[in-house]
């Protein structure tokens, strides 16, 4: 839930990140992902779905990012490979990704400072996600039902982006929360 005032940043640990590329029109694809990750693949551009411990983000017309909590990337990859058929690509990208949860009353302002993308709720309501320029890096940003945002970016940008966020959010009151804090 959004906290009153300020911006709270929390790293989301213990997650498997798997990149999936396949023909969006193949009915076996949706079935395989539902079977392995328990989440429905979004087919609408710029949207994401979540179910229980899994999230599926639209990255392109034939590309998705699956994020599964408490699972191992290689195992998810293996299960998807077994469940899929035909021409596809499944890659465990867990080691390359960092996911942050940004919450707080002023989180929207920090996003607006960081990117040319229009993060106003009118354009970016819950359920939407966008890959865009974020500071001088690129990131996948997703709007959640509780008013918070999930941000996924490359691990090599972590130091830079964490410093950027701390600086950009300082004027609103910034707090870096431990992963196990409420």
């Amino acid at each position: 839930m959004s906290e009153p005032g300020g911006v709270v940043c929390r790293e989301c640990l213990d997650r498997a990140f798997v990149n999936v590329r396949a023909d969006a029109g193949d009915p076996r694809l949706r079935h395989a992902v539902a079977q392995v990750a328990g989440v429905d693949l979004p087919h609408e551009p710029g949207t994401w779905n979540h179910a229980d411990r899994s999230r599926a983000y639209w990255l392109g017309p034939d590309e998705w990012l699956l994020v599964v909590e408490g699972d191992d990337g290689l195992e998810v990859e293996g299960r998807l490979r077994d469940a899929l058929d035909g021409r596809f690509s499944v890659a465990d990208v867990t080691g390359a990704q960092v996911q942050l949860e940004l919450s707080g009353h002023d989180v929207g302002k920090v996003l607006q400072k960081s990117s040319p993308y229009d993060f106003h709720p009118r354009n970016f309501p819950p359920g939407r996600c966008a890959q865009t320029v974020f500071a001088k890096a690129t990131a996948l940003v997703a709007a959640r039902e509780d008013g918070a945002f999930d941000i996924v970016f490359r691990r090599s940008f972590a130091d830079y982006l964490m410093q950027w966020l701390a600086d950009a959010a300082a004027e609103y009151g910034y707090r870096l929360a431990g992963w196990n804090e409420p």
Partner: protein
Amino acid sequence: MFRIRCPYCRELRSEEEFSYAGEAHIPRPEDPSSLSDAEWGEYLHTRTNPRGPHREMWVHTAGCRRYFNVLRDTLSYEILAVYLVGEMPPEREEAR
């Protein structure tokens, strides 16, 4: 700076998210080894460089990472059409 409507993301996005990828509709020669140096040089380097509508490729680098074609006026920077790779620009612009 201008904004481009990505045909895959179906949104107007800032130019900052894209990279220019050169003139569109330049077919690679079927048999490069049979070309003279002049013909190969022509294929590699000679571009139309028009003053006005220009058919060019862009890639949504920071977004969906897909290539597509844009018909853009090099004088006004107005984007006249956005269309997919493998397609030709809409008829009216072709008739110039």
